[in-house]
């Protein structure tokens, strides 16, 4: 059960992250192609490396999501100094004990609304500085034991710096239905944050 939910979630994350990358204009729009997912038009990276990065990252999360270890997945845009400018955070809560059958259609319906909302959220985001990079970061509730799984080794500690002040949150979409609860919000550095 949880496996199925996790798979849908991971698939959704892949699409959503690609959408965010597209939304922020990291790459020229030619780097994406229109695809249909959950019966709506989404973007998909054409460049195999980009596609592979997003894909392997989120699918690398799958076993941990199934175990309920992943708390947040963030797409972080940071400048050359490694200081984040904007973070898109997916806050996840998977009810592992959920027993009954998951209605895939219902789940997809809810997840779809994220993609819809995301596609119109550009105004909420910040214009990124000229030279910036991005990465996908996952926040675990607890560190997985290194030996437990080979997948774990693929994950490396991030060197992206944290903000000194608590960030400002702009919620984009929340979904709470059993057994999955996902919230997407954007984090921006607070106004009192020392400028880099």
């Amino acid at each position: 059960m949880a496996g199925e939910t996790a798979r849908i979630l991971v698939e959704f994350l892949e699409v959503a992250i690609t959408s965010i990358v597209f939304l922020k204009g990291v790459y020229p729009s030619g780097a994406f192609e229109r695809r249909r997912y959950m019966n709506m038009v989404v973007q998909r990276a054409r460049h195999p490396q980009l596609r592979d990065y997003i894909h392997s990252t989120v699918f690398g999360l799958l076993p941990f999501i199934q175990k309920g270890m992943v708390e947040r997945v963030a797409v972080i845009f940071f400048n050359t100094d490694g200081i984040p400018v904007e973070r898109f955070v997916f806050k996840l809560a998977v009810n592992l004990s959920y027993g009954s059958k998951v209605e895939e259609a219902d789940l997809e319906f809810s997840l779809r609304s994220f993609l819809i909302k995301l596609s119109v959220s550009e105004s909420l985001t910040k214009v990124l500085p000229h030279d910036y990079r991005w990465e996908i970061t996952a926040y675990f509730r607890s560190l997985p034991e290194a030996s437990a799984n080979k997948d774990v080794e693929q994950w490396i500690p991030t060197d992206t710096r944290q903000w000194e002040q608590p960030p400002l949150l702009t919620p984009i979409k929340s979904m709470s239905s059993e057994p999955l609860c996902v919230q997407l919000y954007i984090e921006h550095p607070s106004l009192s944050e020392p400028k880099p």
Partner: protein
Amino acid sequence: MSMESTRSDKSAKRSFNNNRNSASSNSNSNPSNKKKKTSQKTLGVAWGSNSRSSSRSSFSNSPFSNFGSYMVEKNRKLQNQFEAEASTSSHGGSGSVKPIFDGVSIFVDGFTVPSSQELRGYMLKHGGRFENYFSRRRVTHIICSNLPDSKIKNLRSFSRGLPVVKPAWILESVAVNKLLSWVPFQLDQLANNQPKLSSFFTLKRSSVSNSASTHAPCQVNPEAEDSSLKVGTSGDTYFSEVSEPFEHRKQISRESDDLVNENSNASLVEETAGSSGKPCEVAMGIPSNIDAEDESSVKNDLQSSHYQPTALVSSNCINNQNMKGSPSSMVSEPSNQSHSTLGDPNFVENYFKNSRLHFIGTWRNRYRKRFHSLSNGFNCTSSNIKASPLKTAIMHVDMDCFFVSVVIRNHPELLDKPVAVCHSDNTKGTAEISSANYPARDYGIKAGMFVRNAKALCPHLVIFPYNFEAYEEVADQFYNVLHKHGNKVQAVSCDEAFLDVTDSEGDPQLLASKIRKEIFETTRCTASVGIAGNMLMARLATRTAKPDGQCYIPPERVDDYLSQLPIKALPGIGHVLEEKLKKQNVWTCGQLRMISKDSLQKDFGLKTGEMLWNYSRGVDNRLVGLIQESKSVGAEVNWGVRFKDLKDAQNFLSNLCKEVSLRLQGCGVEGRTFTLKIKKRRKDAEEPIKYMGHGDCENLSHSTTVPVATDDVEVLQRITKQLFGSFHLDVKEIRGVGLQVSRLESTENSKQGLERNSLKSWLASASARTEELCKNSHVAKESSNRGCEGEGDETLGQLCGNSVGLSIQMDSNTSNGAACLNEVSVLPPLCHLDMGVLKSLPPELFSELNEIYGGKLVDLIAKNKGKTENINHTLSAYSHEKIEGAMKEGQAARLSSMVFQNEIPVENKAEQHIAKEVLAVSGAESFVPASGLKKTDLIPSSLSQVDTSVLQQLPEELKVDILEHLPAHRMQVFSPNVLLDPTEIPLEALGTKTAENNSGSKDFVLDNNLWVGIPPQWVDKFKVSNCLILNILAEMYYKSGSTGNLSPILQRISSVSLHQLDAFQDGWDEAMYILCELLKQYIKLKIELDIEEIYVCFRLLRRFAMKSELFIQVYNIVSPYLQALVGENYGGNLHMSLKD
């Protein structure tokens, strides 16, 4: 414009038309005249305002007092000149030239070949007259080659009733040196090259004296109110009539410039039977509604009464003034254009109004409406009795030459005279005989024969027009008799039916004579009866029985009877099949029996082969009373179809669509496949012999299927237009158009406005639908998808079908009631009722429900004032809709039903819907209300008290709701700190002012969890509060759909003006405090899982804060708390800056 130039010979030619000028040089008139000719006006241009005003000014100092006198003078001069020229030209030409155009005065309109000058020359030469200016008094013919559309459309005002002829008429007349009839030379655009139906052709009075007409007036209208005799002139072959139709008809008759060719043909009456068999084929016989028919008959009555005064008795028509559309009226009936699609916008409508086949086709629906209950009732039982084929006795009753008998039943003197029915009795006509009586048949007259042929066979044949009202009346009487004697009646046509008399006591033959006697007594028409063991043999027996007799074929005689029977006599064997069989040297059924079933099936296909094999042995397994469901509905017009241009055709198509749409609605079906059939004239085909017939045609058809069945006229029109476009045809070649709709699905009950008007038909249709349901489950599925209403009907229908089975409506009514009473005993328990739904019921329905529940409903409502919403939003909305649908239906049914007891089924039905709606929700969901109630009363204080199995069966949203509430409980229990926390903050913010209150209400906060329950507790609290804003909040809770979320409520409030909310002083502090509390608890509830909701709420609150003091304070108090919680959960602050 060119007025000036005509005044002075010196002025230069200013012409509109160079062609004409250049052509004029060929003319033999002198130059000075030419100049004048250039001033010739085309009609309609002549008296433009410009020319008038300009001329007026220029005449101010002229010898003419006004324009009129100028024109008079000018015309006089022109006339003189013409006469002078005429005398010289006739001198110049051979003196022996006979003045062939004596009495003819032409006016040339527009560009012609040859030019108007040449034509003028001919007129000069041959004794005719040439008018430069149009004058109704002087001109007898208008010559032109082409007319603009506007003139065609307004032919009457243009031609003033004068013939519009091509110049070729003059040329050919000159060539043969005699005045030809102008009729064949009528302008193409008008004449369409067809010989036209007549009308009176009136000449101006002067032409009577002038003309050397050899035609004596045939008839003088005795009622001529006008002294002027109008003499129709024409070629030798035409007969003319003198008449003076009504004043208001005068123009029309003038305009209709055709000669009397088939004079009595002229009318709106349509031909139906065609030379090739069926030019008008009513693809399926179910009509538009009766109202329309009635209306049309009324119209016809009006018409006929209207026409009667003119009554010209033509040929041998007698006594039919009482019929609608007497021959005389036909004669005076105006334009021949209405006989074709040309020019008659209502062609389609009129066509079907007057079509006999349409009558027959649509009769069935009428019959069904009238006898539905009867035939349907026996349907239910008939299937049970099928088993014993040995004893069955089937009777086939057929009226003898129905269409004639009915018409002449009031004319006993004609009983043994040859009489035929046809819409036209013109002796030369190509109208087809639709029915002839036996004396006429003795002359060899058959249905489908042209009148002229029939008249040739039997000159004293009396022809009557149709009398559709009488047919209907007699058909109804006929069926009344049949239904009296047997409850298993299958109508074949308006005059033909099968009866299953197996169950009847007594000898079928005696019964047959009794029936025949009764039919004769009631209808004064005779009927023949055939009796046999099955439908086929009964029908064949009738053949022998006719006329006015009866015949019984016992089973043992079947073989003998069949062996010599020509194959053609078998139903289902038509021309083609007959020819094929004859090629195999099969002439009789006996010979047919020699062929094995296999080879028959090989040659003629599986079904036809089997049919042949069975029929030739007298085997027929069909059951009396099986009503074949119609496979298609459509309408086809193959007579009088002539299009001038695409617009015509489109217009015609859209009318055809209207007709088809009406028929679909009449049948209560919608179709998915649309087939457009076109008859296209073959390239080498001559004009058909039959007037306005379709002649030799290619049959083309295109079809398309749409995903959703429809009967909507606009959709039909759109589809048809597309289909028509796909033919890529020259519209002028089209001789027939038909539109068929197939893949029929029954219309939803909601749409069956007509049929639903009475409870009777409702019940009937429901049971009919049940039948259909059996056959066609997917239709049923669809209908149930569309709502509970359909479902309900079907159930009811089933109830009817199961429990009724009786044939009589009354019975089915009562038993239906009984069935519904059973329903009552399984009323949904009180707690299953949706309060929202109950509240929104109309008062009368509610009181009825209340009675059923023994008054408990009212209590329930009162008790639940605030705590009603048990079922989640979507569910209630859904059921609400359903209930409403049910209500509407119930009301409709009630309105129409006069019977008081019918109210029971209605309310029961509504009840049933409620029950259904609750049950429709799955078992798990139906548990919801109960659990909801439980929550309000005894809230489980922690998760441990909740039965997890129950919880898991709950629908998603509810479960979330519950889960949302339960943690709150736990918090209350386990973390009092969190609760204490908020009380701290307001204290700080408000200072000492609120300290009192706060301390006072601490228990209150601790004791209450505002967001627990459905509806949440705060709603009740707020409702009873004396603070306006709180009241509004509570009110908005319900208005916003009771979702349990705050943001919809706040959104609603944002539409309320907040300024006045601050205008109160009482309880300000209390209101603020409780609002803060509400928000804090809400934040607590949502912070973990739905930050978006909180975000939305607070943005709304911030907006309120800009307008309202109260909300500023509330916002200021709560937002630090919010940020703290957000920080705790998300490690950041909500971005609430006022910028965006």
